[in-house]
């Protein structure tokens, strides 16, 4: 019985309640929220240290208590390397998000304590999703996390927030309900086989191993659709640009940085080990969707006029790479995919934050309203560029390692899909650099900058313009992200060491071996 995960789960919830009661005292609420998120980060470090990658135990830091005996449901938690890095990412991003949203202008009549309370509530939900080792508990968190996100978008979002919040919730709920059918299917299958039904993940893996392929395919589809909506894979992606664009910046970072990863995490934790035969059978379909997503997401990202939608579409392309790495069934590609999940959280999270900082200065989301902004705000321009380079996977940044691992690991098994995907790298360079050029390079132009600056003449003189460069708080928020981008770009080993054994275990559950994995052992 390990209490680390339980503490990780409960702490933000307590924080959420405390912050909610600080209504009308926004300043205290912010500090309390930040305090809770920092303690949570410390706890995550404790969990990271306590986790032993070389141990043969598939799940560690486990704890379990009976919940609904009638259905054999246990309130059980535990992590493998994949879940651990995701929980660490959540704990890392949360203080950043809180710092980033520190002085956000909220819609009229909304209080900051409500906003931060919802953020902390989200954190509990997200940790729960990754830490649950009982399928029922996983499902509960999977759905429960929708509620705070729904309110974050709907109450604190942009002008079209009602529509976006509704779309987000309905898409996810539909996916969740389809998954519920499969969860029940798993329960019934295990009841047939064991007499008493169970939803314990580890038991189900052994039960499902020799279930007939047709059963596996049906159950796989239920999970897959839910995760493909979350991830999101084309053609189930249309909610993300709306939700991403309308969400307040902090919630947007969590949405694309963490929440969407539930989908790819779900592929790895549930689709592959529980339905090995179906996964192999349907891999070509998934890979096709992944590659279509890479190309289609990249092309649409090139064509975006709205910066937040742009970030959302780049994410769709990146999720294509992650799905490619997962369903290529090699340990390199799988490890790369998990590392990609972490790196995407960092680089896209940062991209979202800098876009938010641009918007808070210009007051517009449209690219055409900006131009030559680097003259006014050189530091912001530079950091935007760093986030962009990380997003396009320039060597030396974190994303390069993961993208390279995914491509090199996928090639032996899936040469055609891999070759087509490399086109996505070229397009990535195009969309990132083009946006950077339009917003930051050239002469100062665009209604957002000029109207604030007070006219064409004044704007060229940074001293006299109304637009200020990053303040200390903003730099402090972005600094850890830049540091991680560079550290993981040059020395990803600590993270890879945690991920690799779990990917090996996952692949052996699928029944795939590749030479690289065996050498590694």
């Amino acid at each position, binding site marked *: 019985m390990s209490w680390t995960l339980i503490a990780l789960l409960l702490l933000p919830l307590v924080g959420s309640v405390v912050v909610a009661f600080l209504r009308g005292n926004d300043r205290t609420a912010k500090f309390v929220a930040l305090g809770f998120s920092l303690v949570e980060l410390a706890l995550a470090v404790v969990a990271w240290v306590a986790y032993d990658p070389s141990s043969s135990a598939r799940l560690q830091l486990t704890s379990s208590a009976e919940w609904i005996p009638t259905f054999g449901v246990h309130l059980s938690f535990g992590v493998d390397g994949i879940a651990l890095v995701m929980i660490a990412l959540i704990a890392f991003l949360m203080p950043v998000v809180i710092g980033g949203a520190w002085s956000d202008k909220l819609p009229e009549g909304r209080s900051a304590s409500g906003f931060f309370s919802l953020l902390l509530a989200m954190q509990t939900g997200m940790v729960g999703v990754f830490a649950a080792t009982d399928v029922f508990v996983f499902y509960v968190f999977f759905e429960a996390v929708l509620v705070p996100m729904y309110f974050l978008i*709907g109450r604190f979002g942009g002008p079209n927030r009602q529509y976006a919040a509704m779309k987000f919730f*309905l898409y996810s709920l539909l996916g969740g309900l389809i998954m519920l059918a499969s969860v029940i299917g798993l329960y019934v299958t295990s009841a047939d086989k064991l007499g008493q039904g169970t939803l314990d993940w580890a038991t189900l893996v052994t039960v499902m191993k020799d279930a007939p392929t047709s059963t596996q395919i049906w159950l796989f589809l239920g999970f897959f659709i839910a995760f493909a909506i979350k991830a999101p894979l084309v053609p189930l992606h249309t909610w993300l640009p709306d939700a991403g664009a309308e969400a307040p910046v902090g919630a947007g970072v969590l949405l694309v940085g963490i929440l969407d990863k539930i989908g790819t995490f779900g592929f790895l934790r549930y689709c592959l080990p529980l339905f090995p035969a179906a996964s192999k059978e349907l891999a070509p379909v998934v890979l096709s969707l992944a590659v279509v997503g890479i190309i289609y997401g990249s092309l649409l990202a090139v064509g975006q006029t709205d910066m937040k939608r742009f970030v959302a579409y780049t994410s769709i392309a990146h999720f294509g790479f992650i799905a490619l790495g997962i369903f290529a069934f090699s340990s390199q590609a799988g490890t790369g995919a998990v590392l990609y999940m972490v790196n995407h959280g960092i680089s896209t999270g940062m991209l979202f934050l800098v876009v938010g900082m641009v918007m808070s200065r210009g007051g517009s989301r449209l690219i055409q309203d900006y131009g030559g902004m680097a003259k006014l705000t050189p530091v912001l321009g530079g950091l935007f560029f760093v986030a962009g380079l990380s997003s396009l996977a320039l060597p030396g940044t974190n994303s390069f390692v993961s993208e390279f691992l995914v491509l090199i690991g996928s090639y032996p098994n899936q040469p055609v899909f891999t070759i087509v995907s490399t086109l996505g790298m070229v397009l990535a360079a195009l969309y990132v650099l083009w946006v950077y050029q339009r917003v930051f390079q050239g002469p100062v132009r665009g209604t957002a900058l000029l109207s604030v600056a007070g006219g064409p003449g004044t704007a060229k003189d940074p001293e006299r313009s109304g637009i200020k460069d990053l303040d200390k708080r903003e730099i402090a928020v972005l600094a850890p992200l830049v540091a991680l981008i560079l550290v993981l770009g040059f020395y990803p080993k600590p993270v890879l060491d945690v991920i690799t054994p779990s990917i090996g275990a996952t692949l052996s559950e699928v029944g795939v071996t590749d030479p690289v994995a065996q050498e590694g052992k």
Partner: protein
Amino acid sequence: MKFLAQIQPIDPPEILYGAIAPVLIVLGAACVAVLFEAFLPKHQRWAAQVVLTMLALVAAGGALGIYAAGEDNKPQGVTTLSEAIAVDRPVIFLWVTLLLLAFGSVLLIADRSVEPGGAFVADAAVRPGTVQDRAQASRTGMQTEVFPLTLFALSGMMVFVAANDLLTMFIALEVLSLPLYLMCGLARRRRLLSQEAAVKYFLLGAFASAFFLYGLALLYGYAGSVKLADIATATAGSDKSDTLLFAGFGLLVVGLLFKASVGPFHAWTPDVYQGAPTPITAFMAACTKVAAFGGILRVLTVAFERTNWEWRGVLWGVAVASMVIGAVLGLTQTDVKRMVAYSSVAHAGFLLIGSISLTEQGLSGTLFYLLAYGFTTIAVFGVISLVRNADGEATHLSQWAGLAKRSPVLAGVFTFLLLALAGIPLTSGFVGKFVVFAAAIEDGLAPLVVVALVASAVAAFFYLRVIVLMYFSEPAPDGPTVTVPGAFTTVAITLGAAITLVLGVWPSFALDWAGAGGFIF
């Protein structure tokens, strides 16, 4: 005098008073309540009736508790009154459910603080729209006959779920229906709408009763008996025509489905839910549903299990129709009471899925669902009764805009209840869906479950729409006010919401209890 000697001495049937004491107490209290109406002066009646009704419910619950506690060493149940009444585990569960739900409804009925004088008309005999009517609108008295009527209806429901032969069932059906018809017409405000609802309910209900009675006659022709057990025996092998059996079954089931407001026999539901005084709607929606499904479960399981191969396809279609009608038509509603009515039609479809599973899990799942749904519904109508403007309840959805700003607690509770209706985890609605769908998949009804899940997702849209209105819209300047509820309504809403939460987080107790045993006949 000679013929007297020829008459065989009649053996009076044995009566187990202990088993049927709860029904007798409720019926007895109803009779006393009628005497109160006759002999007490008008100003004393309300207090006397409330005390009597509450005492009767508590005493009936106590009698049931004593019986159930002493039953441990006895068999799974008994039949009494010449096998006309069966008191077995499901009946005890349903009786407890009915008594609890009736208690909640009576709290709403008794409330006089929300609407001065209560939700009921002071003098039902005055024609609406006349001078006298305007005079009575300002009087604070109410027709206290509603209390004995409630008790009569409740006793009918209790007998209905315990009836072991069709004739008893028919009489119970009438005993439960006739008071309801009357109670629907007693609204203090919008009297014409209320009276129209009563007439509509009465006419359609009379038709349904006729169907039931005709079916009963045909089945008597087939089996030569009205006892459920004898019909079951006859279906095993009878030389009578199967036409009699199936025509009889069809007509009988139409009568039952009407009461349960299963689509396409739901036409009365929205009008009656909207027109009836809200406390009566709560009583109807919660208790009638429990009684009707209790009856359906018993009839299908006891009498027709052997022929399920023939009729299951039909009820399969009915369940689909009900879910689709409820979910799709619910989308177009603009009145919150009508919306909840269509939601109840969709829920009836889910309940029917559990009822036609015909397994132990199906039975216990449906029973649990009834308990969960009943309490959520009572709390929902309790909240609805609080949102008012000068004309009484403000049930048009547009009037609910921005309610969260005016009354955050009320909006929070209502959101929770709506999420429960939508089946989000950690609410009783989710556990109810889970158990019912698990039973259905286990029994090979997987396609039906998929339809149900899609219907749930569609239905979630209109629940969410209310949440959107309450939280994300600006309140209208002349919008309704939220009345501070008196003690009775507060208790009713708290009870409903608390049980919704408890059954969602810790359902084991109720699940075990619902699964304690099957029908005895």
